[in-house]
């Protein structure tokens, strides 16, 4: 028979009773309870927590959790055409390998002397990302594309001292919820929407012109837009914006920038976005990784809220190290309530994924993947547009996403998607609630992972489910 002893927890080395006693002796107390003397009795929790019986062995735990996870169907098992801000791409095995390195996975911040490696990764990430988006300066990664857009808009207001911003009506309603919440009671007092041409989905320049005021801090556009269109009037919008003394901010999908002109080429002052497509698994939306990049203008850099790493000379000899709290007076760590915004833990591990991804891809890889995505998504759009009853309402050029209208089928997107799911397909994101004026429409996303067979399967299945 086993002796009845307290449980020794593998994650808690000092749960060995003898060790615990020895440490209590050194500490000079008889019972751990004495160490809780400072919490008044009335504030103590008196019963034990009501939690399920633990699964003490690793085997039982793993089996139990696998059991729950097996109720999920992943995009590896189901053919996926969902995008809308979270994108399925191939994650190179070297990215997964590096991310599983315990040194990166389990470090926190550190110093140049304890953790120079991670700061070098950060510096390389910033160097490559700014190059990809055509900017010159960025900091640690932030949270996601939407909150980064919020920061970009607030930066516009702080830099210009003005308080109104313009955004096209194609920005997703859920992104607007993030932006509106982030801008409430802030430097941004007014958010105005700019209309888009109903036939092309591109921004109406006259409306931009009409809505610019002496108090316009910035104009934010997305390229590609949430509905997938490539906005071709970047230069014109930049011109109007700059003439008005306002700043031009662009939200991008960085995956497109091996083939699409980077916003820096058409006049952007601030670029924001989400680098999840660059080597981060979707994680049910937990893979987001925001960024805000600017030009090398002191007044603009001074308004960036994230931590920043600057390369630095060594005091003696050649070589380099890093100043790991560069320009720190911006940050709430030091400035508390006087900081630009709040700063804290965000998504640094994903910047390591991004760095490895961009390193592997190189200029040629980014170009080729962009070409593949363009061709496959246009092919998918073509196949779908040839199906009687289905329309792809926007003729504008697109990158990886495009709108499909089911209005003529008499069915809702929800019904269509339920039928597709039976054929092991995740149909496009239902837009009928987000953009009611588009009727029963869905946003389809195609990437390099789709084969011609997959796309034909989609077309065939759509044909089957619409009658």
């Amino acid at each position, binding site marked *: 028979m086993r002796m009845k002893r307290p449980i020794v927890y593998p994650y808690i080395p000092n749960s060995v009773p003898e060790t615990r006693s020895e440490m209590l002796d050194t500490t000079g107390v008889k019972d751990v309870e004495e160490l809780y003397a400072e919490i008044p009795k009335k504030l103590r929790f008196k019963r034990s927590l009501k939690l399920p019986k633990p699964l003490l062995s690793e085997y039982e735990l793993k089996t139990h959790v696998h059991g729950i996870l097996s109720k999920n169907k*992943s995009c590896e098992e189901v053919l996926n055409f969902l995008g809308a801000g979270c994108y399925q791409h191939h994650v190179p095995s070297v990215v997964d390998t590096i991310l599983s390195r315990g040194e990166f996975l389990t470090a926190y911040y550190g110093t140049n002397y304890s953790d120079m490696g991670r700061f070098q990764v950060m510096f390389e990430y910033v160097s490559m990302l700014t190059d990809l988006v055509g900017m010159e300066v960025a900091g640690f990664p932030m949270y996601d594309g939407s909150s980064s857009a919020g920061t970009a808009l607030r930066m516009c207001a702080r830099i210009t001292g003005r308080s109104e911003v313009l955004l096209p009506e194609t920005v997703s309603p859920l992104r607007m919820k993030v932006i509106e919440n982030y801008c409430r009671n802030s430097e941004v007092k007014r958010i105005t929407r700019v209309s888009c041409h109903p036939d092309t989905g591109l921004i109406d320049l006259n409306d931009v012109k009409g809505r610019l005021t002496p108090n316009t801090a910035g104009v934010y556009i997305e390229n590609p837009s949430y509905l997938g269109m490539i906005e071709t009037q970047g230069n014109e919008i930049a011109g109007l914006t700059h003439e008005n003394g306002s700043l031009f901010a662009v939200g991008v999908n960085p995956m497109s920038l091996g083939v699409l002109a980077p916003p820096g080429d058409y006049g952007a002052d601030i670029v924001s976005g989400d680098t999840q497509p660059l080597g981060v698994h979707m994680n049910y939306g937990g893979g987001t990784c925001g960024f805000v990049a600017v030009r090398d203008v002191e007044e603009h850099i001074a308004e960036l809220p994230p931590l920043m790493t600057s390369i630095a000379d060594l005091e003696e000899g050649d070589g380099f190290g890093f100043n790991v709290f560069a320009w720190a007076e911006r940050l709430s760590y030091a400035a508390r309530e006087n900081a630009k915004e709040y700063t804290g833990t965000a998504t640094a591990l994903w910047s390591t994924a991004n760095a490895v991804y961009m390193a592997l891809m190189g200029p040629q890889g980014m170009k080729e993947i962009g070409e593949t995505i363009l061709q496959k998504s246009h092919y998918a759009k073509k196949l779908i547009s040839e199906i009687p009853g289905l329309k792809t309402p926007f003729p504008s050029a697109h990158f990886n996403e495009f709108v499909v209208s089911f209005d003529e089928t008499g069915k809702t997107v929800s019904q269509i998607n339920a039928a597709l799911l039976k054929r092991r397909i995740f149909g496009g994101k239902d837009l009928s609630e987000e953009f009611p004026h588009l009727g029963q429409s869905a946003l389809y996303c195609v990437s390099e992972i789709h084969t011609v067979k997959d796309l034909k399967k989609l077309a065939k299945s759509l044909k089957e489910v619409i009658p």
Partner: protein
Amino acid sequence: MTEEIKLRNYHAQVWDEPLLMELSVKGQRGILVPEAEKEVKAAVGDAEDLIPANMRRAQPPDLPEVAQPQVLRHYTRLSQMTMGNDVSNDIGVGTCTMKYSPKVNEQLCATSQMADLHPYQDESTVQGILEIMHKTRDFLREISGMDEISFQPTSGGQAVYTASSIVRAYHEANGEGLKRDQVITTMFSHPVDASCPATAGYEVVTIMPDKDGYPDMEALKAALSERTAALFITNPEDIGLYNPRIDEFVERVHAVGGLCFTDQANANGVLGKARAGDAGFDMCHFNLHKTFSSPHGCMGPGCGALAVKKHLAKFLPVPAVTRDGKNYGLDYDLPHSTGKVRDFYGTAQVVLRVYAWIMSLGAKGLNEVAEIAVLNNNYLEKLLLAIPGISESYGEGRVRLDQIRYSWEKLTADTGVTTEDVERRMTDFGVQAYWTSHHPYAIPQPLTPEPSESNAKEDIDYWAAVMGQISKEAYAEPEKVKSAPHRGITTAVDESAALLHEKCMFTYKKYKRVKEGKE
């Protein structure tokens, strides 16, 4: 005791690893990507022609060109120049609750049924992860004494920001949005407890410590008014003292109509021992990457689980994870919600790890976590206070919970060796640099260790022995400490440049131009 410890003759892996850009060889490839099939190409033509002419990228991005083995080696080497919890003793990194992140949880996160889920999949295909989120919500309700949880915030900071948004929504709903424009915090609360309310538009009033190191009750009384929107306070505060009058703080703020939020980013010492909900708080948050074991990932992604009482639940971000008896779902129909603070639902994979961690421990295990964390800290205190030059800040005769802010003030006065010198020297012994304190240093020459429950007695003995050795060196040969590190990954950098904007170089391009004398 510390004399008996043999210090490691550690030597860091000095790779002299160049910047990735310097490894670039024209034409090399790190990975190849799928090409569109012939049939596809034939149907749609050249990719270039699919892009409007003015939107084609004129110059390819200037990314390095490096073959796969060289990329792998480069980043593996950089990982070897990083001291994660998996390889080094990081007891010094206080307020951060560095603890073991179980490997089995990493394996679970890496499964396709977690990693490859799209957030907009049909709810019927994500019942597993929704179940995990819903059950973990129940666990955290019990642990916090609160009624509802949101996992949407990615971090502690974002959780405190979300709490600030909820304060605003609550007072606006009561027609007091404009009137209540102040949030009160304390000097030793985490800086986000000041910066998040400020980011949400509040004027922040900071309560300074009294002579014993507790937030000054008289200052609180003076600060309270009809303008008070909320109190944002960390307890125990960063210096490690538990505020025994915390319930009185809460009562006084409630009495003037304000809400009370407590920052439980680090709740390691109080798990199962005291609950924010029972102290009367309306809201609190937990950093799931601290107390609840999800790895820090060099600074995220984490999760700041925000817990609120019933009267604030309707203001939480959308969507809520729901259960209708049988099925789990996502509810966007929350008309009073403050909106959203980020895309999608938060970092679901972090919630998965936390579910597994709590399930591996249960109520007894969580109790053990708290007790051992507190015991480890008090044990370390005994060892550290025996070292010449070190002292405790405030709280004479008070028992601390899981962390303490100490000071090297005497060491600096006696030897000229500063806390930053010690911080550099300690890496020579194979331990992670410690956390000093947020700036400005309210306590001179600070250090803030937090020996979480993952540390063995031997780890604590070793860490104290390193401090003892450095103190000895400071008194005998201070230059040795000041010129450290000696066996580290690198040597001293020119730190003056960090504060001079014109000397900052944030990218390789800038660095190269400066090196070539072009800037």
